[in-house]
């Protein structure tokens, strides 16, 4: 290489420009959305100066409060149940010699990731609408159950990854010291597994919070979550209030993802 000292073998013409363009494309729409959330005027087309007006209006809107609370209840319940089920499933499918049905379990647990959401959504609509008629119950249970199902693979992934990287000698040592299996699990496995479980829960929580399609098809009347409420609003006329809700939502997601990254980095 001495004959051509300035020749950079990593360079490809135009790649840097396209990459920077891509980053601009990724952030320009979000930046626009956030900017208009702070717009003082009544419309998303005319800029009327900086103001927090629409954040105040959104937070006072009873329908928004209602939807936000419902989103929180569903995401918390679904993520909790999904994390417990996924932790158990992860323990049952890692650090074991392959046994019959192991591959089947993997496929089963990851199934919600493989099927387009709209397909699952209408299938649930078919089944749940029947059950709603039969039982007369049309509460939040359906939404929580549906969310739990598609949250399980997301909770499962980090928990399984954590388990696989864990050293089983500590648990064996506990067993050698006459700890019962349950005690060994509580005092040794669970504390070691905690970062994976927290990551899994957060991932499940964000996934549930974000869901639009399945919620839209499964919900009964008056069961809007924040995303389905926004979907309804976008269809009608758009005021910067939707921008304000979206911006608050965005801030929460970014916060959760950042925390998730930090936790995962500490692990590595």
């Amino acid at each position, binding site marked *: 290489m001495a004959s051509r000292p300035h020749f950079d073998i*990593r360079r*490809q013409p135009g*790649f840097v420009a*396209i*990459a*920077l363009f*891509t*980053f601009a*494309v*990724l*952030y*320009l*729409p*979000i930046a*626009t*959305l956030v900017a*208009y959330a702070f717009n003082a005027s009544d419309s*998303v087309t005319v800029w009327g100066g900086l103001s927090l007006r629409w954040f105040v209006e959104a937070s006072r809107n009873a329908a928004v409060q209602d939807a936000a609370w419902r989103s929180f209840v569903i995401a918390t319940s679904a993520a909790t*149940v999904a994390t*417990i*089920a996924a932790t*158990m*499933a992860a*323990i*049952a499918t890692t650090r*074991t010699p392959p*046994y019959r*049905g192991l591959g089947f*379990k993997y496929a*089963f*647990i990851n*199934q919600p990731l*493989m*099927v*387009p959401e*709209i*397909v*699952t*959504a*209408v*299938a*649930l609509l*078919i089944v749940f609408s029947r059950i709603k008629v039969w039982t007369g119950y049309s509460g939040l249970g359906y939404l929580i*159950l549906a969310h*739990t199902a598609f949250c*399980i693979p997301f909770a499962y992934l980090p928990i399984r990854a954590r388990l696989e990287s864990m050293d089983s000698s500590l648990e064996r040592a506990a067993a050698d010291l006459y700890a019962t299996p349950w005690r060994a699990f509580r005092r040794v496995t669970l504390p070691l597994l905690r970062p994976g479980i927290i990551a899994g829960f957060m991932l499940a929580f964000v996934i549930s919070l*974000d869901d*639009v*399609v399945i919620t839209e*098809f499964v919900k009964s009347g008056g069961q809007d979550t924040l995303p389905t409420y*926004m*979907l309804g609003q*976008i269809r009608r006329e758009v005021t910067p209030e939707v*921008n304000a809700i*979206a911006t608050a*939502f*965005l801030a929460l*997601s*970014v916060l959760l993802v950042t925390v998730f*990254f930090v936790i995962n980095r500490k692990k590595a």
Partner: protein
Amino acid sequence: MASAGETARQAERKQIRGRWLLSAPALVIIFVAAIGPLFVMLAYSFMVKGDYGDVKPGQYSLDGWFSVFFQRDIFDDTVTFADAHLSIIWRSLRLSVITTLATLVLGFPTAYFIATRPRHTREVWVFLVTIPFWTNLLIRAFAMQQVIRNEGILNSLLRATGIIDQPLQIMYTDWAILFGMVYVYLPLMVLPLYASMEKLDFRLVEAGYDLYASRLAVLRRIIIPLVKPGIVAGSILVFIPSLGAYVIPRVLGGGKNLMLGNLIELQFGAGRNWPLGAALSIALMAIVMVALLFYVRNAARSGAQHG
């Protein structure tokens, strides 16, 4: 010795039973609220549609599947192709393929750019790709709407620079859906591409230049073949959700530019043809399964090559 082997096998069997019990909650929940309903839907696709939605219990027919492709004239019973459905299916396939190609054209240089940064800054760039990825899909579609609508910044920019004097009508066209899908699914292309480029051995690139290869030849003959698994993974990850897109065409495409997802919804709403909706859903799932199968086979082959 025989009895020792016997007890060991018994212990092993007991352990496996324990493992099934432990995984039971997850399996049951997914069966009840994801896999089971798909089978019910498969059955529905072979039933007779009810007059006000739903189906007539106990009556079976192939009408649902028939009307995916054909329509029967009400007056003279002549059978013709169901152009409306076929054109929507065609649009879905076309837009998904274009989206995949566009994200590849933008995503490949982006992933390469990240992979060639100094090690400590790579993480920051990856994080910058991850943030939009975790942002709500609906919010991103809505954000794109604000960019491309007639009074949006794209049109303002084009008018300010004098390129156009009338706003471009992008909203409620196929272009709007395309812009939305490319924007939303870009991270799904960049991330797997980056994962395989990160492992790229630049000594091979150097060897190429030593043998007087041009930059284009190095790209075509060395880099692209080496990161092919990433290209395939990214393309599958973009193609599958594009094909099943529902929110993006609904927000950006308006009522006329439907994609398969919206056509399915229509059958369960105003269309009141649940068997057709079920058949369309199964068909969509079948296409996705074929794409996944292609991916798995490809992954297995390249795994065999490198491993």
